């Protein structure tokens, strides 16, 4: 656990993550305006800020007999787990926290998200929230194994669980070129874990907002921030895993990392406006019958190449 950026990195990281997450929210707002057939003025960029101000003004909601402690704890933990995950992502060459098991670390932070989001849905003592929580856990079980195998496949190609070394191993050829399935599975999992776009059924409108159903004011704000932060963290992680990390001509490596991250993030945000929501009960079968075998074959191919 050495070799990371200095301590200031840990201080700056949450703010940096917040900034990238806000970019994602701005982009989504712009796409939403375009979909409604309205002009997209420059000030649409500020919409997330305005939205945050609104949520700060709105009062917090109370429900009957909630488990208030666990409810608030769940919502508040979302962003923390996103920061933990982002800590092992190399910003160019060096992550805030260099770990020889960075890939597994990312995975572990993501499972903490499971627990946090379940509490967010369940804690409010609301039918809609509970349904949202059930849906997220079912979805999580379905994407988790493909996700783990996608992470392992990248690590296998590099022969290391250290994210920095995984990025370094792509000097000649980006992993996305010969592990396309793993890359796609990782992105699908990224959407699913941030319950975004096609995988937003845990917060679906059919269940009055699911896990978000009873959240208002600052409670809702922290959950939404956590969600965008996870989207950003996952996009940031996909770059060192599959897109060569900070490699690129002329520009400094951190700038290349940022450019690639924003490109992946934009794609993830765009998906929300392009596809309908996928029902969890149907995704379940797709995950087990299609994604899992596909990624196992991908892992097998990579192992054979490595040997």
């Amino acid at each position: 656990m050495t070799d990371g950026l200095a301590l200031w990195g840990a201080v700056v990281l949450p703010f940096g993550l917040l900034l990238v997450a806000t970019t994602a929210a701005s982009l989504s707002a712009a796409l939403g305006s375009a979909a409604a057939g309205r002009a997209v003025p420059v000030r649409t960029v500020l919409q997330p800020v305005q939205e945050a101000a609104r949520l700060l003004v709105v009062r917090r909601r109370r429900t009957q007999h909630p488990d208030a402690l666990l409810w608030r704890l769940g919502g508040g933990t979302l962003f923390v787990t996103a920061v933990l995950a982002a800590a092992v992502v190399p910003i160019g060459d060096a992550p805030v926290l260099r770990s020889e098991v960075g890939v597994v670390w990312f995975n572990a932070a993501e499972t903490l998200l499971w627990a946090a989001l379940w509490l967010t849905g369940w804690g409010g003592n609301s039918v809609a929230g509970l349904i949202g929580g059930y849906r997220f856990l079912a979805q999580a079980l379905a994407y988790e194994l493909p996700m783990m195998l996608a992470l392992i496949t990248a690590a296998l190609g590099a022969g290391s669980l250290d994210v920095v070394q995984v990025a370094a191993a792509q000097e000649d050829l980006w992993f996305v070129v010969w592990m396309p399935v793993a890359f796609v599975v990782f992105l699908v999992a990224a959407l699913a874990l941030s319950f975004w776009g096609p995988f937003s059924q845990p917060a679906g409108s059919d269940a009055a907002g699911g896990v978000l159903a009873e959240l208002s004011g600052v409670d809702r704000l922290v959950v939404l921030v956590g969600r965008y932060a996870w989207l950003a963290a996952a996009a940031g992680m996909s770059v060192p895993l599959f897109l060569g990390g900070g490699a690129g001509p002329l520009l400094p490596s951190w700038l290349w990392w940022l450019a690639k991250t924003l490109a992946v993030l934009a794609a993830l945000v765009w998906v929300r406006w392009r596809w309908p929501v996928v029902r969890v009960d149907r995704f379940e079968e797709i995950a087990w019958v299609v994604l899992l075998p596909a990624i196992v074959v991908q892992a097998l191919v990579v192992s054979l190449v490595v040997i």
Partner: protein
Amino acid sequence: MELVLAVAFGIVAVAAAVAVFVVDSMARATYALLVSFLAVAAELVLLGSAYLGVLTVLMMTVEMAVMGVFMIMYMMNPAGLMPMSMVHNKRGALSIAIGTFVVLGAGALLVPWPSRTGEPPAELTRALGFSLMGEHMLAMIVIGVALLATMISAVLLATDRGRYDRYGDELERDTPRDPVAGGVGR
């Protein structure tokens, strides 16, 4: 610094473990147990076994999250929110717990631990992998497959609907008869 952290996490682990028996709700007990495990995982990381520590976080979180859901689904208790006693056979449980703690604690303090002779390898995770798998690769593979087969058979035995229920006695149907159709569209 590390000592301070180790002590702090140790206190958190024990306090959360005590909380498991003190709190009066299933969910809180489950999550208190999770906090305890997370603190133990942090201790492992501090000891230099990052891999084992992170793995503990991963496994335990998933386990607790799923366990919580099942408890809440099956309990005759609205969404697990009603206060209830989390302990059965208080006296027996307490004596076993304290007994185990004393034995293990005494062991930790009384055993003459050998002093370190070499240096730890640069890449601990790799060393761990080799020492586990290097000599016993075949055994590990066999155990892995056997475990997987066991899990699949257990699920098969537990489910009340097999393929004859889904596809008919002669397996004659093209599409299975399920209460809910899956997403692949078979």
